[in-house]
């Protein structure tokens, strides 16, 4: 898997200046468990990066380290050209964050909670605080509930307030951890279109989620974590096209076909009387077909199936429902 990740990165060489986020060999342990294990995250400027992984795979720990909430045991972090935590004061004001659900003071209203966050931001102008807060609330549809106490908010309203907090000032990068958690379908659509709008303005977005269908709709890039390791990352189209397309060959000599395919270094995922399925693993389908024909395998049918993100996800992180650790 690691060699595949390298291959993807190698085809899209990016220097530090092109990257909004870059980590090298980022590692964090909790006791004997390595929660984040040598992660090399590369998020290009302007990307909408879907950060995926099962529960407990190390996504949130990685995000906490990106934001300087937690210190790594090894590795380096660069965000918007500055290293974390040294340059946090310069860099983080340009980063809007929603980490691990919206957290606000229960006894303050939504508006007063935003006022408090804005008051603590040394880079904003107090004289424009009111209009900026009103605009942020309006953008997430909370204007009517702005004066309500936070503890009276529904989960969806809380989530919206968390998003509003990221919009208090212009941002170059948004780091959103499960931003659609608790939202109804309407709210989910709104968040998606908000992410698209912000990305269209040039904001880079890193969005973690386990809702794969949703990520597939907005993401330009993806990274998939499992058990602390970044198994795969790159452009969504590349990742889907190169690594996980399936080829299904219909032939009377299925066993012979399987041998040829295995000689090509491919993994047979399904073998029946008349069909063989293999993962392409980046090989061009026409090359596979030519090899079969050259080996004398009668090919009756040859289909390339482009799997959804979910197939890739399951392929990489396993089928099991159980938390891995």
């Amino acid at each position: 898997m690691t060699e595949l990740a390298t291959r993807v990165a190698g085809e899209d060489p990016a220097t530090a200046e092109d990257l909004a986020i870059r980590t090298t060999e980022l590692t964090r342990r909790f006791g004997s468990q390595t929660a984040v294990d040598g992660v090399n995250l590369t998020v290009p400027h302007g990307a909408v990066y879907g950060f995926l992984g099962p529960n407990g795979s190390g996504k949130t720990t990685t995000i906490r380290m990106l934001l300087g909430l937690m210190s790594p045991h090894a590795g380096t972090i660069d965000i918007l050209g500055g290293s974390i935590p040294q340059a946090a004061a310069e860099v983080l004001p340009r980063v809007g964050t929603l980490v691990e659900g919206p957290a606000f003071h229960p006894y303050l209203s939504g508006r007063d909670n935003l006022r408090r966050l804005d008051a603590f931001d040394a880079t904003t102008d107090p004289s424009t605080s009111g209009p900026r807060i009103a605009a942020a609330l309006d953008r997430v549809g909370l204007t009517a509930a702005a004066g309500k106490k936070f503890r009276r908010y529904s989960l969806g309203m809380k989530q919206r307030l968390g998003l509003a907090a990221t919009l208090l000032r212009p941002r170059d990068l948004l780091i959103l951890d499960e931003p659609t958690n608790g939202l109804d379908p309407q709210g989910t659509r709104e968040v998606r279109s908000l992410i698209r709008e912000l990305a269209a303005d040039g904001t880079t977005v890193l969005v973690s989620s386990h809702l794969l269908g949703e990520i597939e709709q907005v993401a330009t890039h993806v990274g998939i974590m499992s058990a602390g390791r970044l198994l795969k990352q790159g452009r969504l189209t590349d990742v889907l096209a190169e690594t996980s397309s399936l080829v299904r060959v219909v032939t009377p000599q299925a066993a012979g076909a399987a041998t040829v395919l295995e000689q090509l270094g491919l993994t047979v995922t399904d073998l029946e009387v008349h069909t063989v399925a293999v993962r392409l693993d980046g090989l061009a389908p026409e090359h596979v077909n030519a090899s079969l024909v050259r080996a004398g395998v009668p090919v009756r049918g040859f289909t390339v199936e482009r799997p959804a993100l979910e197939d890739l996800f399951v392929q990489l992180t396993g089928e099991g429902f159980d938390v891995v650790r």
Partner: protein
Amino acid sequence: MSSVDAAVSPRPVGARRGLVWNRQLGSELRLIFGRRRNLAMLVLVTAIPVFIGVAVKMSTPRPGEGPPFIGALTGNGLFLAFTALAVCLPVFLPLAIAVVAGDAVAGEAGAGTLRGLLTIPVSRTRLLMVKSVGVLVFLAAAVLLVTVAGLITGAVLFGTHGVTLLSGDTVSIGNGLARSAAVATYVFVDLVGLAAIGLFFSTLTEVPVGAMAATVVTVIAFALMDSVPQLGGLRTVLLTHHWLDFSELLRSSPDIQSLLGWSLLPLAYAAIFFTAAWARITTADVTG
């Protein structure tokens, strides 16, 4: 968006630094003084001198009974402030400080708002400074309220003729008020040490009630140890040992040297625990 763009500068510079500090502290004070629980505690400590004053007015106590200075009360109203401070100092004021100081960092960590503040970003040192000053302002407000409520209630119920000191000398009202201010300051300094202990506990946990309880238990432990004569000289370094010695200020010529010396003790506690709180908050992982 363009007007918003213009409103943002990459870093605070020069004269803006003070403004930033004022905004942050203002927000912190609104949080502390906007909390109903904290206001209730302030109302409670304000009510204590009123309660004592009315009780004394209704039944003249015999000398030697009841809280300190209560016998001197009927003679002059100013003594109500001293009585009230002496009553509040062992329990009510420490409790109020423990709640606000214990909540300061642990409350934000427990609610998850700490990570919101740190990712704005606010430096951890700055956050501790804002939190500390917020707690000290609340402490000052509490001590001031007890003192002022005592002075006003005393003046209304017992009048403001010449102030007779513990030594028997009589001084002017102005002199009496100056002594009241000095006593309030002494009490404030006493409690600064406790506030720092509360802040330190607050950096250790995400459960604010735990930090509050630990702070209160610390006061009780100090008071208990102070009541064990066998501890001898060790008792003089207990935080609470000189708390009530503000009576020195009610003598005709108070021993200022001793008072200053006693005040160094809570300040030393404050320095130690504030440093510990700083060491903790600047290194801890924020997982809440």
